[in-house]
Structures are given as C-alpha cells and as structure tokens.
C-alpha cells in the first residue's frame, strides 16, 4: 500500500502544468561546434592508425623476434581501442554527452542485454566437456561438425583443393604454357635483331618467365599456403632459377619472397600473393598469349613470330598475330 492516497496540489506544479520537470525533460537542441567535431575526427583517425599499427607490431614481434605473445594481447588491444573509438562517436558525434541521460541509460541497457546474450551462450558452448568428455569437441550427428563436408563426405577444403588441381591440369592452362615456350623461342631470335628487338625480347622473356613461375607456384601453392614455408620456398625457387641462369625469373621470385617478408605475415602474405598470381594466371591463360603475340608481331622479325607461334599451335593468340601482320 505504498501508493499515496491522493495527490495534494504540491505534487502538481501549477507553474509546470505539462510536467516537464516530472518527465525529466531537458533542453534538446544541443549544438556541437565544428572544432569539437574536427578534434574528435582527428583523434578517431589516429586511433584507427594506432589499432592497425598495434596489430602489425604484434605480428612483427612474432615473426621477426620469434616471441609468441599470448593471444589475448591482440584481442584486448584491438577491442579496447574499438571501445574507446565507439565511446567517442557516441559521446560527441551522437551527442550522448550533451543529450537527455535517458538515451545513455538505454544504450547501457542494450549493451548489458548483448553482454548477457554472449555470456550465457558462451557459458553453454564452452563447457560442454565438463562432465562427459564425449560431449566436448566435434560431434557429427546433432552436434558440432567435426569436418565441414560436401555431399560425398569429403571435407570442403579438400574438395576445393582437388577441384583446383584438376583445373591446373586442364588443357587451357597447359596451352598457355606451350605458348610460353613458343614465345620464348622467338624472343631469343628477336634479341639478335637490334635494339628494338632486344627490348621486345626482354619484355617477352619476362612474360614467359612469369607464366612458368606462375605455373610452378600454382602447383606448389597448397604447400605454400602453410605458415612459414612460403618465403623460404620462394627464395629456394629463386636461387634455383638463378643457378640456371634465368635471372628474370629469379628476380621475380626473389621480389615475391621479399614482398612476403616485408608483409611479415607469412600466411597472410603467401595467400595474398598467391591470390594475385592466381588472378594473373587466369588472365594469362585467357588473354596472355594474345598480348605476347601482339608484341611479337611488332618486333623486327614478324615472319619468325608467325612461324613460331602459329607453328607451335593454332591458338587464338596466333590468329591475332596473323591479323596484326596484315596491318
């Protein structure tokens, strides 16, 4: 019976008939000046740089100094910067600092609910093996999948790799390599024909090397994908090429290795580089020999080029070369 029997007129304030005071209303029109906004923006951008730098530094320490940092340093670092950034955005850009406090309370409730959601879901999913071991870890039927499988029961990552191997073995890419052989041949010839020829030859040689190296990389790629092996692998390949006197190829490989090292993220670097190479290979397979033939057709020895290319195969590139000859 805590309710007051009847409200005496003191509760109802005649000077405030709309109960503005009771309703906890504030002056709503807050003006946040441009100086504040700009300062906040600069701080936010700096924090973004900081969080990226922090992650990079952490990787650098692990890769170059060989110190294994505990996993939570990375997480706590990145997330605390994110929290500071979000607080800045909410306080100044979203004006919570100046606004009716009810909005702040509301957001706190919301984050609290989110916290409960994460906490209790985690409580279950991370304590499965507490009493019975068989409940922990991968359970296939009705539980967490041990392997992520395709319809025929093969793990998806393996299936994807298999499909790719098939693709490498496919005639189209083999064709590109054959073109590379042919182009290399006439590039050597072109080198003997004066300065223009030499230039063209150089360009062609690089192209050829590129195609071959790409093929090599593709074949080795699954192995390269593993951490720590990629840079070494590339360097070894570069050395091998240098030993064979193929300077251009060695340079490319050495550069790749350097790029990977420079990224200091062996895994990320390798995958990134491979992805790029993969893309280029795709281009080479479809249009690369076309470009090569184009270059060849503009060198001094056009007929040699024609014989070289179209003699080797009857490809789209050869057709293009023939077409160029006509001009």
């Amino acid at each position: 019976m805590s309710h007051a029997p009847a409200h005496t007129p003191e509760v109802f304030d005649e000077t405030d008939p709309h109960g503005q005071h009771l309703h906890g209303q504030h002056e709503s029109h807050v003006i946040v000046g441009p100086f504040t906004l700009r300062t906040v923006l600069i701080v936010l951008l700096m924090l973004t740089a900081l969080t990226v730098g922090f992650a990079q530094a952490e990787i650098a320490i692990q890769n170059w100094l060989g110190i294994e940092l505990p996993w939570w340093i990375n997480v706590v670092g990145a997330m605390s910067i994110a929290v500071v950034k979000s607080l800045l955005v909410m306080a100044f850009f979203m004006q919570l600092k100046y606004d009716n406090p009810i909005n702040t309370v509301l957001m706190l409730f919301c984050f609290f609910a989110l916290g409960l959601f994460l906490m209790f879901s985690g409580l279950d999913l991370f304590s499965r093996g507490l009493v019975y071991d068989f409940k922990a870890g991968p359970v296939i039927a009705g539980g967490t999948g041990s392997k992520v499988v395709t319809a025929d029961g093969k793990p998806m990552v393996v299936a994807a790799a298999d499909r790719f191997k098939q693709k490498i073995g496919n005639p189209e890419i083999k064709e590109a390599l054959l073109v590379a052989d042919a182009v290399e041949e006439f590039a050597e010839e072109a080198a003997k024909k004066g300065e223009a020829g030499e230039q063209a030859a150089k360009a062609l040689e690089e192209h050829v090397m590129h195609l071959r190296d790409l093929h090599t990389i593709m074949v080795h790629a699954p192995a390269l994908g593993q951490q720590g092996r990629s840079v070494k692998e590339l360097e070894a390949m570069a050395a091998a090429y240098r030993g064979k006197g193929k300077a251009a190829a060695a340079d490319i490989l050495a550069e790749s290795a350097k790029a990977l090292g420079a990224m200091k993220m062996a895994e990320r670097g390798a995958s990134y580089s491979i992805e790029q190479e993969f893309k280029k290979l795709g281009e080479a397979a479809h249009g690369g020999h076309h470009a090569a033939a184009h270059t060849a057709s503009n060198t001094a020895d056009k007929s040699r080029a024609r014989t070289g290319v179209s003699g080797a195969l009857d490809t789209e590139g050869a057709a293009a070369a023939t077409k160029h000859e006509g001009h």
Partner: protein
Amino acid sequence: MSTIPTQSPIKALWQRYVHAGHFRTAAEEFDACKFGFWLFLSTEVLLFGGIFCAYFIFRTLYPGAWREGSHLLDWRFGGMNTAILLISSYTMAASIYCVQKAQFTRAKINLIITLLCGAAFIYIKLAFEYIPKWSVGKRPGSMFDYPFANDPHLPLWWSVYYCGTSIHAAHVIIGMILIARVLYRTHKGCYGPTHYTMVEVTGLYWHLVDLIWIFLFPLLYLIH
C-alpha cells in the same frame, strides 16, 4: 507598417513547421523522436549482436579457422573503409551543425560528401573485397571453393564474414537513401535551426553504421 526591408515575406518551410497535435511543444516532439530513434538504434545493436555472438562462439570453438581467415583479409581495405566511414560521420555531424546555424549550402555540401563516402565504402567493399574474394572461391558455407585453405572450418569464417559485412553494407545503403532524402529536403528548405529532427535522426543512424564498423573492422581484419 515598417520601412525596414525584410529579407523575404514568405517564410521558409522549416519556419512554418508546426509540431504534431498530440505533443505539447516542438521541443517535446523533438525529444520524443530522438528517444524513439535511440530505441530503434538499440534494436540495431542487438541485431548485429547475433552476428557478434556467432563470431564470438565460432572464434572460440575454431581459433585455427579464424586465424587463417583473418589473414586472408587485407587490413588496408578495411582500414581505408574505416577512415572513410569516420570522415563521413564527421561530415554528417557537421551538416547537422550547419543546419542548426542555417548554413544550408555548407550543410548540403557536407551531406553530399557523406553520400560520396558511403558510395566509396560500398565500391571498395565490392571491387576490392567481395568480387575478388568471391571469384577465387572464398565463399560462405556450401559455396566454398578456395583451394589453398587448411583449416576445415574456413567456410564458416566466410559465412560470418559475409553475413556480418553484407548486413552492414545493407545498412550503409539504407543510410545513404535516408541521407539522400535529407539532402533533397534540405534543398527544399524543410529543415532549419528550429526544426531538423530528420537530419538529426538520420545522423544518428549513420553514426550507428559507423559504430558497427568500428567493431567489425578489428574483429574481422585485425584480430587473429
């Protein structure tokens, strides 16, 4: 009556604005709209909460897949997008300031920059992230076809990545539509120092989009 020349006898739309009848004052209406919008924003936070929860659970269950996955993303694109969204958040806030100060041309310029930033975000997302990744087989779940993966749970990482970023991108697009509307209405003179509720709440929405990305960026690109 007066010999002093007035600027214009016709009042701008924002000066003629009358608040809805069931509110007592325009300030009360503004306050109510803002409170309502904050409620809506809290639902948005919890909507993304599902994605964050899935991320949190699977990251803990399959740390290997998450490490491998985050290395397959390039922080430069993520970082660039973060900067773009932060700048657009600033221009959005600045446009509210300009409307409050009746600097309509500046307000419109700021809104246009915000829109362009949004478009740049989507462009970077599509051209440098989604399309190249999708085309080499980095796809979610059953569509996964990336040959160089090691961890068997990598498809799951891509599921969380695509779900999180695509729902976020959808919010960016919705935000852009709202901003375009505000831009048009500002041009028409609907908003001014005494009435700018829609500018304010659109700004709040845009900042929320920024806020979500502030968390998605380190979670997806930096934490490994």
